[in-house]
């Protein structure tokens, strides 16, 4: 379902919506072209599906194009995706040729006629060339963690990225020297989506009971892929130690892992562990089970995300938004969201999970404070409307080269630029 900006006003406040409209007024009619590699599945497509209509509503001429390519091209870009996140893969001349041929083909097909062109991720990064540049500003929006890339692939990609007017990363931790300005725009969640919208207590209870979970006893939940980086066995160990003293239940909920052999193996080992304990619930849910995930998070006493490696960690954002006390690994983008002892708890070990779970079970008022702060932190910083606002500001900065205020050592500079932007 498509929502309008006004639908978000009860959540973020009419002032925040007005702020977006004031900002967008000066951008009316500006052409924004988003280009990525898929129209369905994955976080980028999900966010563009929601952001582009909202941009249009503000008067911006926003559109979204998807690059095309054959099987060979997408094999190269999959290898590139993995290599840029550190995997050891050899970049062959044949791979380079395949990548560049697809870029050439898409340059001819896609109308790159924006005043600002937003190119998402490495797959279409090569679309910027002297023949396509025109008078537009070009922004490379990187959604992946580039902090430790395979340098062979990064050097190849950087040659293209350095020609952009700006790069955007989700966190400074994921950034790399691109040779251009690097802005930080974290991802966001949509508070009106099925995964995040309000549910009544009855809906939550029904989902818990459907899975054999007792709503009257404490529930510890981790929602994530069945992946060793999410440390599900660490969570299991923590649960077993807590279980000796507290009557808790554990929910490990994740998606199907049909195309991921490691995921399938992790899932089957977890299921085997759960056989002997009826209070361990390993739930393998379809990718469309948004309402169920929503209900499981809302029905939890504490939400865990004991990752040892993480991207931004949007499942943490979702749990915080639901006002849940969250105990999470101090890795990746989680540290932007969980401010230790303020919006949640950061841990580095199973011991940490055990200790803080006991603390929160015994001090529900502290758990409630964390949950309240966490929800407010997400409301102010990680909702879709903030994401939209940041993109509008980025358009201004990309076009003018500077903000209206530059805090200098002795005063605010460029204050007179306020009318200009």
């Amino acid at each position: 379902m498509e929502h309008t900006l006004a639908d978000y006003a009860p959540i973020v406040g009419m002032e925040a919506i007005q702020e977006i409209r004031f900002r967008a007024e000066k951008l009316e009619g500006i052409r924004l072209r988003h280009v990525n590699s898929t129209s369905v599945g994955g976080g980028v497509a999900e966010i563009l599906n929601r952001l582009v209509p909202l941009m249009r509503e503000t008067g911006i001429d926003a559109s979204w194009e998807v690059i095309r390519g054959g099987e060979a091209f997408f094999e190269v870009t999959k290898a590139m995706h993995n290599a840029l996140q550190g995997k050891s893969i050899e970049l062959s001349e044949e791979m380079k040729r395949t990548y560049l041929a697809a870029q050439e083909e898409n340059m001819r097909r896609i109308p790159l006629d924006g005043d600002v062109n937003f190119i998402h991720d490495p797959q279409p990064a090569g679309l910027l060339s002297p023949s396509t540049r025109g008078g537009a500003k070009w922004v490379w929006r990187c959604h992946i963690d580039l902090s430790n890339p395979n340098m062979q692939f990064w050097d190849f990609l950087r040659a293209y990225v350095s020609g952009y007017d700006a790069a955007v990363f989700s966190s400074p931790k994921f950034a790399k020297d691109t040779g251009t300005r690097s802005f930080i725009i974290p991802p966001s969640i949509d508070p009106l989506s099925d995964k995040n919208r309000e549910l009544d207590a009855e809906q939550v209870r029904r989902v818990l009971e459907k899975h054999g979970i007792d709503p009257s006893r404490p529930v510890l939940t981790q929602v994530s892929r069945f992946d060793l980086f999410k440390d599900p066995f660490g969570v299991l160990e923590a649960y077993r130690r807590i279980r000796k003293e507290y009557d808790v239940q554990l929910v490990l909920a994740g998606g199907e892992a049909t195309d991921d052999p490691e995921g399938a193996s992790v899932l089957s080992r977890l299921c085997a562990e759960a056989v002997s304990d009826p209070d361990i619930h390993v739930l393998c849910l379809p990718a469309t089970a948004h309402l169920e995930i929503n209900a499981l998070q809302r029905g939890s006493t504490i939400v865990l995300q004991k990752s040892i490696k993480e991207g931004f960690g949007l499942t943490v954002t979702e749990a915080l938004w639901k006002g849940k006390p969250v105990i999470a690994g101090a890795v990746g983008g989680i540290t932007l969201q969980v401010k230790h002892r303020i919006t949640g708890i950061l841990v580095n070990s199973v011991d940490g999970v055990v200790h803080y779970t006991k603390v929160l079970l015994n001090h529900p008022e502290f758990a409630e404070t964390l949950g309240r702060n966490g929800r407010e932190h997400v409301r102010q910083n990680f909702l879709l409307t903030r994401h939209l606002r940041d993109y509008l500001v980025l358009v201004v900065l990309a076009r003018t080269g500077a903000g209206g205020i530059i805090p200098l050592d002795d005063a605010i500079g460029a204050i007179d630029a306020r009318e200009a932007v």
Partner: protein
Amino acid sequence: MVTPLNFYTSIKLPEYVGRKAGTVEELLEGIRAVDGSCIFHHTYHFLYQTQYALAQPKSDFAYWVDVILHDFELAERLSAVNPVEFSTIRALRERLVGVMEEHLRANDCRARAPGNMDFYFIRANSVVVRTPYSACDLPSFRECLKKLSIGSLYHHLFESRMKPGIKANDFSDWLSDQLGLASLAEQIARLDPFLFTLEEIRGRILGMMPPAA
């Protein structure tokens, strides 16, 4: 003749400047070297971003030293540096540097941030946007105040202190200079974002004004 007060709001976009720190000493070097916009982001903007939780460190610097390096004494001392007490970033930077140098002289600060928990220096880029709101007397000021975003309140009350020629903040200066309400202006100037959230500050300012006729 009263000059109307036009209301603006400022929206910020962070930018990574390619510098990070893993120890207190590296943090100090960074604070000395980065441009004023970075100091602004990690102090003023941090306060704005997390202003719903009052009992917490008052800057990114203090938070990182506390939670990542576990140097609680330095965290406390950095937390005590209230950015809104300074009228220039230069003065704020000098205070931060002074506190850290003193701490380094007296303590063996070898702790290094684990893993990928370094401190990343970020610059704040602000874009200031004119809102349609404008006040020419106290009743219209009151009505506008009710409608302003938190970002707008923050801009006029705290960010504006760094503008050249501003004595207290946009609101206080206008109330005093244009409407002759020096006492109200003085009360508003004393409001401290360390002690109240911006919503509370809005409520307090509305409470300070005489009731609408």
